[in-house]
């Protein structure tokens, strides 16, 4: 169910330059800011510092401190401010440095931004983008490593994006900025540096709500989000060696959710593993698994399984943290077992 608001066709993959995941986000922001003067971005150390992750480096030089705005350490304050600005003629981007800090602003996102359009009988719109990060293994410990996309995905009125490639991140971010609804956009921190990819030089927008098949296969489907897409692709390559053909489907947005593409893939392969870096219980993985089971039950060869962050506060020690995130090997082993080979 792609959105009217953003239903422009994604261009063919005649990509012509390679950029990093963070570059993709920065390019999307820069392009939308050039295109629409009502787009501003605010957050902590986003201007000269270009954020802690340096992802926005250079933007303040082009757009000035009036549009790339350093704020006090007030996530609630500037997110709430952005909600009001979004209602009154602007398209603000609120920058939440670490996704864990979303816990501070859930009222502004979930009780305010998500509900204003509905509560007002459709009269007020809240075209805000909330940028947040996700992903562990940076040795940042329990309060700086969570992937909390399950929470906003649970609340009607919000849209949630979990891109896995530079191509998707750029196209989806542009759609998020143009969307007339509150959109929470999750960026995997590890991908900033680790993931590179080709993007077209000409402009393109990817509609929210369209899944993407990252790899075609016939024996088993990996439904993977964000950081887990790379892991699923790695596992798929390993599986090929042993003669198992794995398909990798990336929903790209958890809401709107492209149920059809997910379900059709599983109807074809009859097996499914959902991979997501959020916690596994009461989660994104639970929803994707259940959605597939409701839709493809009679084609399933066995239960849909989940590979997610271990259900523990994320530990600091590398020796411990590394075992909390799903690996290619785990995905490979589970898939093999499910295919009985």
């Amino acid at each position, binding site marked *: 169910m792609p959105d009217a608001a953003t239903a422009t066709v994604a261009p063919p993959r005649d990509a012509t330059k390679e950029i990093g995941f963070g570059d993709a986000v920065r390019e999307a922001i820069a392009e939308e800011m050039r295109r629409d003067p009502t787009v501003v971005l605010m957050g902590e150390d986003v201007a000269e510092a270009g954020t802690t992750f340096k992802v926005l480096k250079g933007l303040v030089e082009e757009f000035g401190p009036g549009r790339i705005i350093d704020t006090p350490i007030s996530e609630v304050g500037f997110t709430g401010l952005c909600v009001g600005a979004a209602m009154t003629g602007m398209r603000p981007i609120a920058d939440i440095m670490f996704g864990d800090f979303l816990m501070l602003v859930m009222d502004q996102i979930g009780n*305010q931004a998500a509900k204003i359009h509905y509560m007002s009988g459709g009269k007020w719109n809240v075209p805000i983008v909330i940028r947040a990060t996700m992903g562990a293994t940076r040795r940042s410990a329990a309060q700086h490593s969570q992937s909390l996309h399950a929470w906003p995905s649970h609340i009607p009125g919000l849209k949630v994006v979990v891109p896995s490639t530079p191509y998707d991140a750029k196209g989806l971010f542009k759609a998020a900025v143009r969307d007339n609804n509150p959109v929470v956009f999750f960026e995997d921190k590890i991908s900033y540096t680790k993931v590179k990819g080709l993007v077209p030089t000409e402009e393109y927008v990817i509609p929210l709500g369209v899944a993407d098949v990252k790899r075609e296969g016939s024996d088993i489907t990996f439904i993977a989000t964000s950081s887990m897409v790379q892991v699923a692709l790695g596992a798929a390559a390993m599986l090929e060696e042993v003669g198992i053909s794995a398909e990798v489907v990336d929903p790209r947005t958890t809401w709107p959710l492209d149920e059809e593409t997910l379900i059709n893939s599983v109807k074809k392969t009859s097996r499914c593993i959902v991979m997501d870096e959020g916690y596994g219980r009461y989660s994104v993985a639970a929803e994707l698994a259940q959605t597939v089971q409701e839709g493809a039950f009679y084609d399933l060869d066995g239960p849909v399984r989940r590979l997610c962050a271990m259900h523990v506060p994320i530990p600091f020690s590398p020796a411990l943290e590394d075992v909390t995130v799903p690996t290619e090997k785990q995905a490979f082993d589970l898939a093999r077992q499910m295919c009985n080979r």
Partner: protein
Amino acid sequence: MTTATKMATDAAVQIGKEKLLRLYEQMIAIRLFEERVNDLYTRALMPGLAHLYIGEEAIAVGVCEALQPDDYITSTHRGHGHCLAKGASPPLMFAELLGKEAGYCKGKGGSMHIADPATGNLGANAIVCGSAGIATGAAYASKYLKNGRVAVCFFGEGALGQGILYEEMNLAQLWKLPVIFVCENNSYNEYTHFKEATAGDVAARPEAFGIATHTIDGQDVRTVYQTASRYIERARRGEGPAFLQCITYRYHGHHVGDIARAYYRPKAEEQEWVTQKDPITLHGQWLMDNRMADRATLDAIQEKLVKEMDAAVEFAVNAPYPDPSRVTEDIYA
């Protein structure tokens, strides 16, 4: 002549007869509206909860009469007065309160969520202090877009307990945003006296952020109007936010169902406010004392509004409920 009479004539001259009568009319409108809400609620015609604004009319009216039509306001759970003062139409208000399709929010918002772009009403909010960010953001947009609009954030003194207020005051002053924080201090956070919940001095809090702060008699509509006008124009000139603490009182319960109140506030206190400090009585008397109106004129205003309000109630009572199929509309823009 005495200072009292001098101040009076000053007000008369500065404010002007037309506006002075308008202030009276608007307060009466809110009073009559709320009396009907009380009636509708007790007759079980209104769902949910009803938080009446009766007794506090001078604040909404004094402030909103100092605003331009395209200026913004945010309101609270006790918001009927703010919405009406900013120009809401009673029939559409009543319809919303009764959950009817014709209401401002198609029945989806109800009493605590009246919103209306046409009158600059960003919405009432059921989260205490939940709209401090929205109002500050509207002020931010006004400054960024250079459209000269001012945003007023109404809230009760109970909102002083919410951290977001301090984050927004800091941002508003830091960026010199045209937002006016209007604190309606009616002494009670639901059933708790604000002194049991509020340390130190209320006015010192916004002052600590460098915000222009003023504490005024919230029952004197002329003072509210003149003070608000001053700070609103100051904000419009780009000189930054202001904080007005308006001392007031709610005559009825926290909500209509709150009848037995003796355990949290003395009947005598209620009586004193109702009999000695009623904003409508005081302003009506002042208008007569200063020959701006005679009893007949005031009665005429009241009669006209009674008819209007009764018609509005009738419209709302007879209006149809939304079709259940509408429930899935308006989730996304």
